[in-house]
């Protein structure tokens, strides 16, 4: 059934990483990405790999989730490695056929880039694994709030995100119901060519649109009835506060970051 699909990737848990303030998590994720990109050689990248693995262990997220997060980027990884292998023409030639040439530099860069991309995706998906979507929008809102000074409607955007996330399960349930109702009237959703199938969606999409508009209107009314008037002067149910765990996390990331810088100074960069 439709209901079984997961919303977002949040994986509930009680690890120190789950407990962290999500603002800190967001910033440290960005630091982590920077760290991967400034590391100029294999050794520096290994520091990044170790960081990713250790952080995964701490978070208690099962390792199969790593594979799950990698599946969508597999084509990109293969594509970039092929480009690197065939288009870097410096260094010793390993293999040659007509105009194709593979060099040791090319292979090295390909491996380097692959590890970098994999680390990047695996590491940053840890953010979405350990933070619920609602917390995440909350954190983004807080981090972006300085932009309010230049009239970016940060609160409104965050509220829209939150509402959208909140209503995904509701809409799925609604779709399920409408689908059952139309199937009960003999709607055929499974057979036929692409055009027939697209046409078969009309009896589902129209009621869904109608009820979404109705729901949006009702929600707006309900919010106004409770005196909602935008973000000004609004307090929060969940106050974000920094804890010891956040401080430790900052030092933890800083240590690895320093490690990467040291390796950059000590070892030669990859082409």
């Amino acid at each position, binding site marked *: 059934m439709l209901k079984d699909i997961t919303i977002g990737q949040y994986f509930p848990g009680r690890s120190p990483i789950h407990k962290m303030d999500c603002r800190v998590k967001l910033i440290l994720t960005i630091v982590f990405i920077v760290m991967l990109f400034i590391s100029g050689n294999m050794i520096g990248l290994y520091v990044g790999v170790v960081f990713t693995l250790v952080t995964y262990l701490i978070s208690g997220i099962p390792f199969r989730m790593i594979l799950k997060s990698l599946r969508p980027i597999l084509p990109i990884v293969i594509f970039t490695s092929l480009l690197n292998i065939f288009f870097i023409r410096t260094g010793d030639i390993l293999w040659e056929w007509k105009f194709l040439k593979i060099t040791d530099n090319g292979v090295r860069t390909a491996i380097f880039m692959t590890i970098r991309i994999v680390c990047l995706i695996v590491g940053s998906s840890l953010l979405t694994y350990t933070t619920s979507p609602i917390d995440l929008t909350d954190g983004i809102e807080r981090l972006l709030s300085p932009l309010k000074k230049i009239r970016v409607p940060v609160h409104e955007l965050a509220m829209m995100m939150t509402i959208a996330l909140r209503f995904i399960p509701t809409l799925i349930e609604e779709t399920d119901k409408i689908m*059952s109702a139309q199937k*009960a*009237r003999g*709607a055929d959703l499974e057979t036929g060519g692409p055009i027939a199938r697209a046409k078969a969606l009309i009896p589902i999409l129209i009621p869904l649109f*109608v009820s979404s508009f109705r729901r949006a209107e009702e929600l707006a009314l309900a919010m106004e009835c409770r005196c909602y008037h935008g973000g000004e002067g609004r307090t929060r149910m969940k106050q974000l506060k920094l804890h010891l765990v956040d401080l430790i996390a900052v030092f933890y990331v800083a240590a690895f970051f320093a490690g990467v810088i040291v390796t950059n100074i000590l070892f030669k960069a990859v082409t």
Partner: protein
Amino acid sequence: MAVIRTEKLSFVYGEGTPFRKVAVDNVDLEINEGEFIGIIGHTGSGKSTLIQHFNGLLRPTSGEVYIDGEKLWDDKKKLRDIRFKVGLVFQYPEYQLFEETCYKDIAFGPKNMGLSEDEIDKRVRETAQLVGLKPELLEKSPFELSGGQKRRVAIAGVMAMEPKVLILDEPASGLDPKGRSQILGLIREYHKEKKNTVMLVSHSMEDVAKHCSKILVMNNASIYCYDTPANVFHRSTELESMGLAVPQITRVFDRLKAMGANINDDVYTVGYGKDLLCRMLSDKGGQTPDDN
């Protein structure tokens, strides 16, 4: 022969997850043709899940469903034919309307059955009349109608398929008293005219008592009893313990009995209660209050 028969039917939501919930548990049921059945049960007792098995919308986790002696889910291609045989009207069916005109919406089911244009036209007009929709409304957009009228269109959309069994999940919920009795009245009319099997899920004991020839009581995912209204409402204390009730009029007569009134019958409709009271009063040999 039973038109619907289930054998050890079970359905579990979210099998293999922490949210596992048994919604229908080992149900054996036999429903004969031509009955008007009321299904009652507290919220979450599995009524809606059970009825979705009768037209193959849900696949049983275990057990079998037979419609007209034919086993469901043996041949997936036959499922669509089963859905024309067992018509299901969901709760708040007006939210499924989608066509430009009421006519086209009612014709959606018959069209899917592959009937001829003439036959479709005949059925749409017939059912529209049956549910009390004026012919001029048929050319209007369903979104322009009132809530009660929308619901009639939606119910007509299923009735127009002329299913052997018509199942309605709380067809009267959210309507005003007049709309309620009209909708239920037209369902009864349909039952009388077509002699089809009708199943009615309801939370109103009064409605069930008034219209149904048999009542199916669901409790905690299984069938508590399946019997005539008189026998079901005879067990008032048991019904109350599972969050249900007996019709108000039954409670009134229970109290009268407790106060010593000489009543032997079970009363569960207002009409019968009135007759009984009148008879009792006249039996007292002219000692009606007027004479004193």
